[in-house]
Structures are given as structure tokens and as C-alpha cells.
């Protein structure tokens, strides 16, 4: 089966996010005052061939642990959807 995988990667809570803070300041000075808690993360999308959704999720999890995310400072969230 063909799956679409989306991995959202963000800093774990408590880790500084200097990029988010800088963007927040820039938005403020452009007059977008109402924005706060700006955070920047990474999204990795790919197609994956797997027997079923459980296997796809397990494979994606392994990929995150070994390569895609850095568990020391990042957490990740995986979404699996069947390809139409």
C-alpha cells in the first residue's frame, strides 16, 4: 500500500527558540502586534510503501529516531494517510 507521511518536528518545551523570538519581534515591528508564541519547526513529507498503516507508522517512527529528528532537543509527530 502507498502512504503519505508527514513528520512535524519542533523543539521540545523549554528549549530556547531564538528564531521564533526574532520573527516575533519582526512581526511586531511590522505592525502585526497580535502575534505571540511564535515557533518555527520543520515538516518532512514523503511517500512510503508499507503493508499497512501500523507498519508505515512504525517505520516512520524508526526513521525519526535514527535520522529525521534529534530526540535530545526535538519532538516529532507523525501523520499517516493512505494514498488515494
Amino acid at each position, binding site marked *: 500500500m502507498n502512504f503519505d507521511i508527514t513528520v512535524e518536528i519542533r523543539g521540545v518545551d523549554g528549549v530556547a527558540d*531564538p*528564531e521564533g523570538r*526574532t*520573527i516575533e519581534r*519582526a512581526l511586531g*515591528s*511590522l505592525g502585526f502586534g497580535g502575534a505571540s508564541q511564535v515557533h*518555527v519547526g520543520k515538516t518532512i513529507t514523503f511517500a512510503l510503501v508499507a503493508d499497512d498503516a501500523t507498519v508505515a507508522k512504525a517505520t516512520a517512527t524508526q526513521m525519526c529516531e535514527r535520522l529525521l529528528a534529534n530526540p535530545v532537543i526535538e519532538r516529532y509527530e507523525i501523520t499517516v494517510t493512505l494514498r488515494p
Partner: protein
Amino acid sequence: MTARIAIISFPGSNCEYDVAEALGALGAECTIVFHDATELGGVDGVVIPGGFAHGDYLRCGAIARFSPIMSAVTDFANAGGAVLGICNGFQVLTEAGLLPGALQRNAGLRFLCEPAVLEVASSNSNLTAKCARGDRVVLPINHGEGNYYCDAATLAELEENDQVVLRYLHNPNGSVSNIAGVSNRRGNVVGLMPHPERAAAALATSTDGRVLLDSFLSWALTNAASPTMIGA
């Protein structure tokens, strides 16, 4: 006559002193203008130097483009004044829409600090007016995001209008058509990734940057921005 040059410094810029030294040695009178200023003063040319303006957060040059001084730089450029963006300055100029295209992460995904051999592709710009097409120069590159991109239509337009200023002989970063530097249509706004100011000092490995910077200064003096158009 002495060319008066404003060198723009954003928080995070770091090549402003180097540019001032190199241009100063060629006879220019340089002022470092902090990004919070709103006026350039009466200058003949503007340089946006290398560095990491606003930390290069979000995208290189994206936040710098909104610094107060950038309105004055834009007016100066639109009035025909000589504007040169080096490395991060090139990124700022593309983000500000003063030059076409965009600069992306190096194809090899690594920062690169090394010499590059370049070929002058046009002498129709403030930077290369004193060079001939086909001249070779060696200048250091120093960037993580120098991979020039523009779509096919823009590229065709650049070629047609003679706006490709410099090309790499050996493409270090994946740039479209080996482009290392481009100009706007009039040739008064130029951006390039390599650092001519690093190839100018007496004991530097290469001194090929001098002819380019010298060209920029002469061009700035003879093609003064039309004052009536500034701020128009």
C-alpha cells in the same frame, strides 16, 4: 574626486569594517550607517556588506529588508544610485525586490569558505565596468546559502538584458546557470555572493577584488543618483 560610500550595518552584519578598509584603501570615504537610520546622507554609493543580518533567521535578508534604512536604500537605487550587495547584502537585495531571484541553501548543504574562480559575464554593471567580458578573477566565497535561483523566464530575461554579472567556473553551490552575481536592468544595483573586499589587502592571497571595487567607486562617482528622483 573622492567617492563617498555608505556601508549599511544591520544587527548581525560583520563585513562592514572589511569593506570600509578595502574601499578606503582605494580612496573612498566610507561611513558605516546603522540600520535604524532613515537617511543615507549625501553619498555616491551604498554597500550592503556580508554577515548575518538579524541572525539570518526565517530567511537570509528577510527581516533586514524591513529595517528603517532600507526605504532610503530603495529610493537611492530607484534614482539610479550605485548599490552593491555582497554575500548577505545580495540576499537582502533580492528579498527587498531590488534584484531578481532568490538565494537558497547550498546544494551540498554545507557552509563553504574557499576561493572561487569567476568569469566576468557582463561589463554592463557598476562592479564590472572596468572589466572585459571573459576576464577571470579569484575571489573567496563564504556562505551557506548562496545557491542562486530564478525561474526559466527570469533567467532568459537576465541573459537577454545582460544582467548576469559573474559566473563560477566550477559551481560550488548549485546556482542556476553558475550565477555568482547579477545586476538590475540599469546595472546600478549589483549583488554577488563572493567577497571582493577579501581579495584586496596587500598580503591577501588574491588581490583580484581591487579592480571590481575600483570599478564600483568610479561608477558611483560618474553615475550619481539623480537627487530629484530620490524620495520621489
